[in-house]
Every structure is written in structure tokens, then in C-alpha cells.
């Protein structure tokens, strides 16, 4: 859904800004030392000595284990953040959860009725697509308390509230009744499209 992409893009942009600021800070500090505009940043970073001077070398050797552990932590953190950041570029996986249907016909009968989440979402999609106002529907049925996510391609000439009241709400009410669940507010992304005359008569 675009809304998930929205959130991911926002996170990616925040990551870009943070990473960019860090690079600029390092760059400015290095250039201040390189141009000798600043003489030192502590004893270890001195514009008139090598990048690793005797102070820096002594510091490294004196706290070798601490620096190694610090480097390991930074390395693990960088790798984890890199993987997480890369993962935001992948399309979201639609996860369908199986649902337990209450045995309303005969409560004395033992056993459980479980309907596959993919079957539920396909049934919901089919019901939504049965309306001439909906060209395409995609549904994600999650855990019982989670909202159902819908993505609908609808006729652009029909007001969205009409599609919701005439098509979406009856379908969701039916699903809620079958699953015996409370009225859970859905999350819906809508795409208005131009339907051809052969579809709408």
C-alpha cells in the first residue's frame, strides 16, 4: 500500500539527512584541520602532525581492547542499519492471517473452523469487485484485532464516500459477521481511475 511506502520513504529521508549531517560534520572537521584553520581537536588530532600522531597512537595502544570492542559494536550497528535501510526499498509483503470462525450452527459440536487468510481476502476482493464501481480490489486480512487493509481502484466519477457506503461497508460488515468480530475500522487506499463505457452501463 502507498501508505506503507509513505512511512518507509519518510524513514529513508530521515536516514539520509542524519547520515548526510554526520558526513558533513566529519568533512568540515577534517577540512578545518587540513587548512590549519583549527590547530587541534584534542591532543590526538593535530593539524601539524600526521593523521595518527604519537598521542593518538599511545591512546590506541593504551586502550586497545576498548577500541576493538567499540569498533565491533559500531560495525554491528552499521551492518544492522544498512540491512534495515536496504529492506525499506523492498515492496511490502502482504501477510494474510487465518481466521477462526465461530461454530454458530451447532455450538455443541467439537472442533474448530479455520478459514485461510488468503481465501478470506480473495472472497472479500471478489465481493468488492462485483460492484461496477470497483475495477480492482486488493485486501489484507490480518489478526482479529488488526484493521483490514484495502486498496481499491474505483470509478473516478463516483464520490469516494458513496463507494464506501454502498460497496465497502456492506462487504466489511458481512466479513465481520462471518468471523464474529467487532466492527474494526479498515485502512483503505483508493485509486480513482477512468472506467471505460463497456464496464459501467
Amino acid at each position: 500500500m502507498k501508505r506503507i511506502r509513505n512511512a518507509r520513504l519518510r524513514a529513508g529521508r530521515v536516514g539520509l539527512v542524519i547520515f548526510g549531517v554526520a558526513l558533513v560534520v566529519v568533512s568540515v572537521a577534517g577540512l578545518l584541520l587540513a587548512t590549519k584553520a583549527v590547530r587541534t581537536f584534542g591532543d590526538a588530532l593535530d593539524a601539524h602532525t600526521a593523521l595518527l600522531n604519537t598521542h593518538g597512537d599511545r591512546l590506541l595502544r593504551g586502550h586497545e581492547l576498548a577500541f576493538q570492542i567499540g569498533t565491533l559494536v559500531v560495525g554491528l550497528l552499521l551492518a544492522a542499519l544498512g540491512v534495515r535501510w536496504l529492506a525499506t526499498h523492498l515492496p511490502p509483503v502482504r501477510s494474510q492471517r487465518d481466521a477462526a470462525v465461530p461454530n454458530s450452527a451447532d455450538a455443541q459440536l467439537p472442533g474448530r473452523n479455520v478459514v485461510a487468510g488468503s481465501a478470506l481476502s480473495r472472497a472479500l476482493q471478489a465481493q468488492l469487485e462485483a460492484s461496477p464501481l470497483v475495477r480492482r480490489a486488493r485486501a489484507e486480512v490480518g489478526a482479529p484485532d488488526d484493521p483490514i487493509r484495502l486498496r481499491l481502484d474505483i470509478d473516478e466519477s463516483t464520490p469516494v464516500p458513496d463507494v464506501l457506503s454502498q460497496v465497502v461497508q456492506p462487504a466489511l460488515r458481512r466479513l465481520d459477521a462471518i468471523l464474529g468480530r467487532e466492527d474494526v475500522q479498515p485502512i483503505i487506499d483508493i485509486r480513482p481511475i477512468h472506467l471505460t463505457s463497456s464496464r459501467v452501463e
Partner: protein
Amino acid sequence: MMRVLLPVAARLISAILAIAMLCAGVVLVIEVVSAWVGHGWVILPADLHTRFAHWHWDDRSVVLTFVALGVVGLVSVLVGSWPRPPLTVPLDNSDIAIERHPLEVSLSRRLQALDGVTRARVRIDRGRVRATVDTNRRRSDDDVRVAAHELLVDAVTTNELQLDPKVEVHAPPRTS
């Protein structure tokens, strides 16, 4: 132009930076673990310590490295903080949203169907829908502006969108 370029640039730069972070992290972990088990340097050059002890802050390669870091950082900050419209436009007080780009295309198509309109472009930003309409002067500019504004107001009202409509009319210059 920026609407097309920026998302592509942002995705490209963030993917490259993410791969760079992952690689840097893996290299650091491998080198530390390798040092602990007594293998010495594995990926980075063995004389790295000596090199750092000889490079000076004003060496050309050092300065160029810092300049390159600064450029990459500035581009990242610029691309990351450049304002961009959201991918979806929410309806009033609900968890329902309309995808921005299809809505822009749909409104453009409906505006283009108005009498006197030769071309229409719609842009939706945060809280505002802005239409730029070209007219062929079969009707007066004001008539076209009013008709386009009414269409946008109708679309915003009936779909319960939190957008403020604005219309700009472009007409060809009058010939004497």
C-alpha cells in the same frame, strides 16, 4: 521535473549509502574478530597503521577525501530534506486515503473535458490542490477559471478531502 528526479535520486543514494554502511560494518566486524583470533588484517591493508602515521592533514589525497565526504553529505541532506508531496491524500477524519498521483491524473482529465480548456495540469501538495489550465479563449479566462475552480471544489467537497483548491489560467496572447 524535481517531482520525478528527487524520488529516484533519494532511492538511489539511500540504496548506495545502505550498501556502503553494510559493507563498512561487515569489514569492521571481520577485522576485529580476525585480530582477536590472531589472523591479523584480512580485508584492509596490513600497513594501514603505518599509512595513517605518515599521511598529513594537508596531503592532497586526505583533503580530496574530506571534500568528497562533504559533497556526498550535502547531497544526502539536500535530497533528504527537499519538500515532497505525500503519496496519499487523507479523507477527513478517517483511515481512508486517496493516492495522490491517480487523483492528480483524474482531476486533470476532468478539467481537460471542460469547455475552453486545451490542457490542464494538477499538482497536489500538503493541504492544497493547484490546477494550471491552458485555454483556447473560446470562453473568457474568468469563465474558465470559475468552471475549473467549481470542478475542484466539487471534487474536494464530495470526496471529503482536506485540500484548498487554487486555479491558474494561461491564455495565448491576443493578436490585434
